[in-house]
């Protein structure tokens, strides 16, 4: 099916157009139009998967284990739809929130190359091709994070670059060793070989290198230090893109690799995931509660939430994997949204620092509602999406008898609630500090600025209200992941594992 290359091809086309388009308005128009198209295409592709189908495409018509295959199954479909929704919302949001030097086509070129990299990583069925997409993501995010050229951004950029480059090198070394051992890099073929392998222990060196690489990309516990050091420096729309897409690609690959072919020596790996997940949650949550800059609170909070996704992978039952996927989708939407709202708060009040702002509840009730939606979704208040995501994960943990990680997850939910209530109290309920505040300094947001946040907030709400439907999708995705017979057969053209 040729159409599954479109989510890569559309951003690529947009890059080519945007390189030429110099006029700011025209660039904005093209990007909104293009991302709407991208979202529509992703939705159509996802609907076409109905009934548990898996679409594959061999690039350049090279047969499967030799050429590069693109594979679209339920998991990648779900991630693709969520990512394109976020891209659509952000392409509207950036019209109002890119200032100075950013306000031209340069930003959009790298925005869409990031999108292309993310979509490519979701679609590819070849481990080396995945490396290439990761580099595409990496280079565009380098540019985006340092786009303002301020001292802070350059410093954040250096830290971001340093750790992520080392992550990439781990990834490449893992690929080299894996190829040396198996003679293939096609993911389905790897699964075919490794699932029948008689010496599973030999594969652990590659698995460890991949775990380190994606642990860095996904910001897991001892490897996350690049994230809080860099995310709060860049422009708020860039931070929102990163928050919604980047770490989740790392999580996506961890789930994909460790369900598809690193299934040997599983007791060790799953226990390691559970320990790391618990530590990631607690450390992220505690660090978040000690800060007063909204962007820093939310950056640490990203880390804490990654723990839940890895917890689902560590429990490794169909329900747990479904929970992890549900949580990832919910988190992409809600996390992006809350960064958008913090940008709106900054626009209205002129500061990200909680001690300098206050009294927003009276001045702008609509902003309060827009904040409440993602904040309560992240904290896990019913009927929003986060409640069901956490409920599924915790239920699967209790079913599997993993009580410690369940206790940690529940305690971390309290920490999340605490940080959200802190922002709520300080920014919305508290009286504005007298020294700085005058009525005139409040800028009323226009409707179009709020629109992306409204869309994402409504998505969180709808995901909660129609949780059964979404859970059905994630359950199909989880079953496809845990029993990859269908995946392997579709890619390798009927080769029986």
């Amino acid at each position, binding site marked *: 099916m040729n159409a599954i290359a479109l989510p890569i091809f559309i951003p690529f086309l947009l890059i080519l157009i945007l390189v030429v388009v110099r006029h700011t308005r025209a660039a904005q128009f093209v990007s909104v139009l293009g991302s709407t198209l991208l979202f529509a295409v992703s939705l159509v592709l996802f609907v076409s998967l109905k009934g548990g189908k898996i679409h594959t495409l061999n690039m350049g018509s090279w047969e499967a284990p030799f050429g590069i295959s693109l594979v679209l199954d339920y998991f990648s479909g779900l991630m693709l739809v969520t990512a394109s929704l976020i891209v659509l919302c952000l392409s509207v949001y950036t019209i109002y929130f890119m200032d100075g030097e950013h306000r031209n086509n340069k930003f959009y070129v790298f925005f869409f190359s990031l999108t292309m990299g993310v979509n490519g990583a979701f679609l590819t069925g070849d481990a080396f091709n995945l490396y290439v997409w990761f580099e595409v993501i990496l*280079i565009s995010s380098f540019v985006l994070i340092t786009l303002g*050229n301020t*001292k802070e951004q350059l410093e954040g950029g*250096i830290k971001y670059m340093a750790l992520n*480059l080392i992550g990439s090198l781990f990834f490449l*070394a893992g690929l080299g060793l894996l190829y040396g051992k198996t003679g293939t*890099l096609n993911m389905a073929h790897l699964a075919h070989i490794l699932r029948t392998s008689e010496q599973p222990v030999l594969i652990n060196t590659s698995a460890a290198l991949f775990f380190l690489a994606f642990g860095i990309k996904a910001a897991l516990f001892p490897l996350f230090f690049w994230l809080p050091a860099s995310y709060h*420096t860049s422009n708020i729309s860039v931070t929102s893109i990163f928050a919604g897409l980047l770490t989740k690609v790392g999580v996506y690959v961890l789930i994909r690799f460790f369900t598809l072919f690193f299934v040997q020596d599983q007791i060790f790996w799953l226990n390691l995931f559970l320990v790391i997940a618990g530590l990631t949650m607690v450390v992220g949550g505690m660090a978040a509660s000690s800060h007063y800059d909204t962007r820093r609170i939310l950056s640490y909070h990203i880390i804490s939430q990654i723990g839940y996704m890895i917890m689902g992978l560590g429990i490794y039952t169909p329900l747990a994997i479904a929970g992890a996927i549900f949580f990832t989708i919910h988190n992409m939407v809600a996390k992006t949204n809350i960064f958008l709202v913090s940008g709106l708060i900054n626009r209205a009040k002129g500061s990200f620092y909680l001690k300098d702002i206050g009294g927003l509840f009276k001045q702008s009730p609509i902003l309060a509602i827009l904040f409440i939606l993602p904040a309560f979704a992240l904290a896990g208040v019913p009927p929003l999406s986060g409640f069901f995501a956490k409920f599924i994960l915790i239920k699967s943990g209790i079913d599997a008898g993993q009580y410690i990680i369940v206790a940690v997850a529940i305690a971390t939910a309290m920490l999340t609630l605490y940080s959200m209530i802190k922002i709520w109290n300080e920014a919305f309920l508290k009286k504005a500090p007298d020294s700085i505040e005058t009525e005139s300094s409040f800028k009323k947001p226009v409707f179009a600025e709020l629109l992306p946040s409204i869309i994402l907030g409504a998505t969180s709400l709808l995901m909660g209200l129609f949780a059964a439907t979404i859970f059905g999708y994630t359950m199909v995705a989880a079953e496809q992941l845990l029993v990859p017979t269908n995946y392997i057969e579709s890619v390798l053209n009927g080769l029986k594992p």
Partner: protein
Amino acid sequence: MEIILAILIGVLYTAGVYMLLRRSILKFIIGIIFLSNATNLLVFISSGIIAGKPAFVDGTTPSPNNLADPLPQALVLTAIVIGFGIVVFTLALKFKFFETTGTDDLDQLQQTDN
């Protein structure tokens, strides 16, 4: 031949890690270059060194022993190009950072922590 390359990879990794731990940003980037080249070599020898055999043969299916595996070379070519691009970007970033702050000391990078 593999032994020599394996030793070279080890030496490069060692040198790279040593350079990463230095305080200067430029030396850090040199460390990245070392590590990146070590990794490229690792990918390169992943299928072994097969001397004097063609990679592509037409006609009949030849025995695998008479073939060199071209894939690691293709992979490493991609990796070299990507690595080169990234090193150029990091050097540009370092230059820009030096222009704005006048420092090459990693210990001065404490503005965005905590």
